[in-house]
Structures are given as C-alpha cells and as structure tokens.
C-alpha cells in the first residue's frame, strides 16, 4: 500500500492545529480583493504526524546506513548541532536586527569567516552564498569584475576541465562568460599541452580564469597543480577552486597557499551541516587580496574599540561586530546574509574538532577511501589507477570504479547501483565524472567503521559475481525497496506535477 497523498487524508472540517481566538475587534475585509476557495487539505494532527513519519520511513539516510555517494560527503551530522540551531537566540533572531542586538550571531559569523580562511589559506571569506553553486557564481562574477576594473573586459573565457561538476560550466554561462573545455590526459589529470595551447596566442588575452576541483572529481590529487596555476596566472587568468572535495584537504594543503585566488566551501559537505534531502546548503567563498574587495556582501567585520583601554573591570576591551559591504562588492546574493542556520552548525563542528581534529577528519576520510578501493581491486576496474609515468597512486577521499564488466556486456553502472540497494546500501554516484564511461564514484567519509566498509566491499564483490552468473538479479533490482524502478519517461511525457485536489474548484 503506498502512503496516501495528504489530500487523500482530508475530511471537511478537520484541523491539525489549535489556534487562539482573536483578542482584538475585527476590521472589515476588502471583499473585492478576497480569494474564493483555498484548496488545502483538512487533516488532524495525529494523521499529519503519521503521514510524515511514514514518508520518512521510505527514505534511506545517513542515520539509517552507509551512504557512499561520491562528491557529496555524506558524513555523520552531529545531533548537538541540531540542538544548537534551535536555541531561541539563534532560531528566533530577526535578520534585520540592529547590530547592537545581535552581537552573538555576528561574532559567530566573523569567527567562522576567519576559521574558513585559515583552513584554506585565504585572506577573506563571505558566508552569504546559499550553496556551492551560488559560491561558484560569486567567484566567477568576482573574477569577471576584477578584469573589467583592470581595463581588460575582453577576458571572457573560463577554462573548465571536462571532468568538472556540471555546475562549473553552467555558472560560467550564468555570469555571461564563455566556457572553454579542457581535456584530461591519460592519467585523468589536466593535459598540460592542451592547457598550454589554450593559454597561448590570441586566446591568452581572453583567458579570465580557470575552474578546478581539488582533488579532481576522480578523487585524485593533481600532481602538476603548481604548473597549472602558474601557467594560467602567467597569462593574466585567475584560478578558481571548486571546494566540493575539501574533505580531502584539511591540514593537508591550503588552496590559497598553492596559489588559488578564490574557492567555495560546501559547509553541508565538509563541515557536516546536513544535506536535508537536497538542501539547504551553504557555499561560503574565500579569496586572496586580489579579490577581497569584490566579495558578495554583507560580510561581518570586527570593529576594534576606539581606544584599546581595558574595560572597567580590567578585562580586554569587548570587540564590536558589524555588517560591511566590501567596496567593490559584486552585490547581494540573497535577501539576507546567507544560510545562518548552516553557519552555526559549521561553527559548532569546527569548534568540536579544532585544527588537529580536522586533520584527523581528512586523514580518516582518505584512509577509508583507499582501504575500500583496495578491497575492490581485482573485482572492479579502477580507472586512472596510475600516474602518467605508470607509478602507483593513492586516491583522496573518494575514487572511481568502472561499473561495467567486459564479460557481462548487458550490465551497466546503474544496474550495480540498483542491486546495491537490495544489499541495504545507498548506491554511489552514477555516471559522474563524465570522462569515465559507466562511472561509479564512491566516497565513504571518515565516520564509517572498518566493519561497515568491509560489508560494503563484500556486497559490491558479490554483485560483480552476480553480474556474470545471474545478471537478471541486477536488471530486476531493486526488489526490496519501497518501490521498484520507475517509469521516468512517463513522468516526463505526461507531466503530473500537482495533485488534482490542489487545483481551484477541486
């Protein structure tokens, strides 16, 4: 029995809420502006609770099992951070509060800005972007404006590796710039010859910058990163880092020190603010001195007291925090100053770990990925397993396996993923990065135990055997999930996006 739609639980006159009676005299309503029917359901409180609890039980989630979804960093989301987010001074704080009345929140944002800057080696950070994609957008807009202000508005090309997240090229178009795609070399790295070509001749004068993911979307550290950055910057371009994979870099390397000019952080990935079934996220951006005046605003600034005299009781002077719009800011990205609910969770997360703790996070994320990869070696093809020179290489916090077998031609990565559901695991990311046909991108994260990784490896190895012996098991999978494979063509052809009962007059 599928869970009914909320409208199917409706009965006229029922209500799920207990509201106070009005304590003021009624005012006349403007009849000519009033609506007729309001087609919302009428459901009792317990029925609403059961409905959403039952729906929740149809979901797979980190809290129910291992979620090795590559490039998404599905790590444990600490419960204490959820408690913090519901404290009244944080949850019931108005975004247009006068600065005098929200010094705690401003201090938190200021500290988080400086900690993120420290973690990645950047001079300044803005927390306003609501998600990684919005952080990218901010970064590319800053790069665009930087060139315009330097009298080089012709710089309109952003180089993007063909292994990039789709948000990268989409961002460039949104910002009104052009994408030039760069191929990978045989080792899955930036092809230096192709990059050299793109950065030469007339094209060089049009290079605005380059977007790179570190480690790459294959989960690999780019061994030639110093040359790549040097080459792009030598022709006047700026370097943008997609920070989706920051879980592999904390206290390992600071992108700002490598020479990147700008990056975004995914607080909902690296810093464990939850994913929420697709959002909200938070996509803070960090920049070096070249771009700091262009940051999206407002940011939080600490104003030192006019005199550094101690307070009356002898304590150090109390700093005052205030909003600040950077002088050449690309502008506002949201009505208010970002997803503060995510900022406070990231703050609590960093506070719990400290600097050495974050180093451990990265160490164990990389350990878990390399361990799982070794457990799959032999049964699965591991693309880009060697450097261009043929030497052994380790992965970062994630890795790609080829989800197909030469001796089982009808089996695709998707079949393996669906079968993994029957084994009780969430599938890896499918068909990304695009440069590996039939890719399965696997990211276990640091919060999983060796035992659970062993079980996942065992399941994947078992599926690899089934692919040859009983391929129908894979084609029919999943059979144990709440529903089986869906008719996606029907969904797209006969668009059914709104319950008929929600239509006027229903």
């Amino acid at each position: 029995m599928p869970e009914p739609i909320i409208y199917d639980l409706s009965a006229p006159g029922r209500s799920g809420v207990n509201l106070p009676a009005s304590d003021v005299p009624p005012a006349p309503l403007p009849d000519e502006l009033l609506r007729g029917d309001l087609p919302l359901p009428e459901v009792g409180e317990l029925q609403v609770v059961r409905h959403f609890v039952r729906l929740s039980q149809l979901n797979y989630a980190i809290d129910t099992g291992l979620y090795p979804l590559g490039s998404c960093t599905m790590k444990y989301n600490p419960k204490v951070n959820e408690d913090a987010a519901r404290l009244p001074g944080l949850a019931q704080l108005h975004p247009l509060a006068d600065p005098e009345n929200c010094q705690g929140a401003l201090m938190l944002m200021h500290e988080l800005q400086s900690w993120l800057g420290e973690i990645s080696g950047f001079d300044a950070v803005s927390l306003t972007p609501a998600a990684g994609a919005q952080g990218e957008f901010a970064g590319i807009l800053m790069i665009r404006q930087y060139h315009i202000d330097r009298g080089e508005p012709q710089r309109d090309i952003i180089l993007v590796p063909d292994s990039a997240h789709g948000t990268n090229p989409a961002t460039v178009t949104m910002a009104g710039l052009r994408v030039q795609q760069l191929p990978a070399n045989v080792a899955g790295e930036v092809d230096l010859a192709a990059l050299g070509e793109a950065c030469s001749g007339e094209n060089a004068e049009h290079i605005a910058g380059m977007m790179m993911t570190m480690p790459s979307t294959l989960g690999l550290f780019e061994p030639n990163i110093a040359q790549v950055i040097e080459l792009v910057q030598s022709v006047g371009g700026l370097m943008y880092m997609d920070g989706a994979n920051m879980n592999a870099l904390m206290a390992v390397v600071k992108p700002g020190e490598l020479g990147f000019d700008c990056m975004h952080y995914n607080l909902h990935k690296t810093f464990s603010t939850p994913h929420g079934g697709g959002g909200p996220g938070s996509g803070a951006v960090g920049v070096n001195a070249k771009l700091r005046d262009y940051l999206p605003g407002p940011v939080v600034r600490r104003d030192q007291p006019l005199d550094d005299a101690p307070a009356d009781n002898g304590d150090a002077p109390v700093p005052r925090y205030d909003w600040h719009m950077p002088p050449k800011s690309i502008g506002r990205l949201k009505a208010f100053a970002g997803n503060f609910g995510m900022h406070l969770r990231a703050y609590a997360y960093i506070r719990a770990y400290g600097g050495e703790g974050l180093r451990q996070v990265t160490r164990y994320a990389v350990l878990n990925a390399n361990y799982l990869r070794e457990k799959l070696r032999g049964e699965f093809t591991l693309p880009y397993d060697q450097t261009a020179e043929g030497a052994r290489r380790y992965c970062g916090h994630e890795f790609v396996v080829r989800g197909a077998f030469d001796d089982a031609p009808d089996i695709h990565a998707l079949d393996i993923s669906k079968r993994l559901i029957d084994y009780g695991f969430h599938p890896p990311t499918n068909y990304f990065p695009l440069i590996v046909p039939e890719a399965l991108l696997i990211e276990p994260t640091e919060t999983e135990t060796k035992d659970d990784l062993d079980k996942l490896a065992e399941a994947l190895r078992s599926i690899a055997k089934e692919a040859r012996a009983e391929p129908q098991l894979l084609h029919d999978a999943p059979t144990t999930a709440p529903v089986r494979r869906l008719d996606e063509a029907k969904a797209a052809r006969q668009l059914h996006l709104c319950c008929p009962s929600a239509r006027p007059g229903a």
Partner: protein
Amino acid sequence: MSYIPHTEAETQSMLAQIGVTSFAELFDAVPAGRRFPSLDLPPAMSEMEVAAEMLAISEANDHAGDFTIFRGAGAYHHFIPSVVNHMLLRGEFYTAYTPYQPEISQGTLQATYEYQSMMCALTGMDAANASHYDGATSLAEAVTVALEVSRNRRKKVILSHAIHPQYREVVRTYHQGKDIRIIGDRGRGELVDLIEMLDSNTAMVAVQYPNFFGQVEDLRKLADTVHASGGLLVVVANPLALSLFTPPGEFGADIVVGEGQPLGIPLTFGGPYLGYFAIKQRHVRKIAGRIIGETVDADGKRAYVMTLRPREQDIKRERATSNICTNQGLMALAAAAYLSLMGKNGLRQVGELNYHKAHYAAAQIDRLDGYSVDMTKPFFNEFVVACPRPVAEINAGLLEAGVIGGYDLAQHYYHLPNHMLLCVTECNTRAEIDRLVDSLEGLC
C-alpha cells in the same frame, strides 16, 4: 573524537591493507613544500563545552523569544506548530541527500510533490518547483525564465519600486553579466508608472503582493496590460497573505515567486529560508531547479521521481540557464508539514488574525499625536507609520520597553525619512500591541 569511530588496531590494519605504514604516504602527490600546514584554530571542545558555547552565543542576542517583535520586512515571526520541528528532526529526512535514487527516496519525493501541490493551491498556478534559495533568488530566476520565454530578444525588465529593496539588489547581482536593462525601481512605484514603462522590448514586469509597504493592490489591469505588450507578469507574493487574498494565478500572473519562510520556518537570522517558484503550464519546461512528478514503478505502483531533468546543470552544463543544484529541500518539507497542519481553515484563521491585529494596531497608532498611518489602502499584516522622530531613536526607546520596533524605511527610500514599516502577526497579543502604542506615545 567521537565522530571518527576507528580504533588504533583498525587504523593499523587498514593502513597495512593499503600497503603503507603511515598516513603521510597517502598524500605523496600533494606538493611537498605546502604539505601538512598547521591550522591555527581554537582547541577542540567536548560536546558539553560546544553546547555551552552555543548557548552563550544564543544568549548574546536579543531575539523574538525574549522581546516583543513588530519587525517584518521580508522575515516574519509566526507561530510554528510543534509537529513541524519534530518532522524536520527525523533523521530519515534531514540526513538524506537529493533524491537521485527514487526507489529509496520516496519520502522526500512525495513530501516535495505535496509541497508543490500546496504551493499551486495557494498561488493558483499550475506547477511549482522544489524550491530556490530564498524569495530574492526566486525572483532573479524568474527574470531568467522571462528572458528565455522571449528567446532573449526582449532586453528590458521592469521591477516595481515597491518590491523588497534587497530582492532588487539580488536581481541585479544575478544579471550583471547580461546585456539587459533593469528599470522601474526609481520613482514612486505606482502601478500606472510601471504601465508607462512597458514596450515591445519588455520581457517582464514584477510587482510585490502585498507590496513592500504592506499594501494589497488590485493587479488585474496591470496583468492585462503587460500581456497585451507581450511580456510576462511576475508576482512576488507573501504566501501567508494568499490565505485571504486573490491568488495571482487568478488575475493572470505568469510566474509567482516569493519567500516561503512565513510557512513554518523560523527567523534564524535570515536563513535557511524557502524560495518558492510557481508557473503556468505553458512555461513549465523553462523552470529551473528540481521538480517532482508522479509516475509508476515497474509493478505499476504510484511513485514519484525528479522529472524534467535535462534542463539541469549536471546534464545541460554550459547550456543550462541556471546552475542551481542544492536547493532548500528541508525547508520545503517544513512548509508541507505546516500547510498540512493548518489546512484550509487554519491557514485562513492565521491570515485573519494577522489582518485584524495589524488593523487594530494601525488604528491605535494613527490616533496618536505625531504619528499617522495611511488607512485608505488595503493592507495585510504590515503598514507604514509616519513618525515624529527618526526611526532609530524610536526603536532605541522601544527596546528599553522590551519591544523590537519596525523597519526604518529611510535606509532604502530616501523620500521616507521618519517612516517605519511595522509588522503585526498572530504572535502579537492585544496587550503587546497596547504596550507598543503606549511606548510610541511616550516617545513622541
């Protein structure tokens, strides 16, 4: 550290399985000169200490839990039924990812479909997406859709002066790289002024409903005029006001966007909020972001799935019109739970409480010497008060009485010095309103 579960023995055995003796070997591809920097961060804390620190930060703010609040201007203090928070705290919802694997994500998918349906019900539109970041970015995305509908041949976008100033700033941020002109937000912002700006190069006109000053206007004539010129009408609507007032779909809006925060989402200093986006059927394939559709599974059982996927950035890449990926999914769930609990009658009752209390407050304040309220135009739960002194001074005085006062309109509207935008919701009791009125009188 409790979030990393490895024992020392496990760690050693895993390193051995990989064939290395130390963690450091795993990072040999990182440039040696930059490898393993130290991070200058405050020392680690136990859970007890983290909880105490967060409480201290919370207490360092003056908030709607301790003060009586009459401030809105795009973010509203409303009653949230307890059930909403309990549903958000279900780990199955908040620790899931985007429902790319529909077989094990039916909870998120169906709840989002129900959210879409209820937003259609409120707005009178045909389809709604699964959310944008907030009301302001929804409006910016609506501009993109309107430009696309004109196949980028029309280059003019008219934004009413009575749209939230910070929404208009966001639209400008989003479209700074495009060859378009954004006009309309200087001047008086009367509807007739917007009509005068219309021409065959106009892709869209956007207005707010109720407008930023709280007034509810009859938009039928505007809709007809915009359509006659071949443009789209975009309405930025407070969804709670739609519990009482004519839904924009009924008077001809092509796109309705806005801030879903009033529907069960706490203030949280500005976010996470919920950008809702609803559209008429004829433009549905131009919508950005995720959208959930009904279909069947291999056994013919009803099920839900993300649909219209090829428009999204992961497939369309540089040809996509928006880069949105992560959205505000959990906030859409909050709105779905809120609207389910309120239902047809509850939501209307909330709307009426807002309306009557705001009108009571406005009438009381209008009677005070030195203060006046324009009572001639219909309004919902916000209204403009002309004050005898600068708003900052009045708000400072109110704060001493435990009241967070209204929004100072002079910040963005230079012709409105000493004008305050006040908001009254169902959370404000008559006693609180009377206290506000008394305090204002004392501050004259």
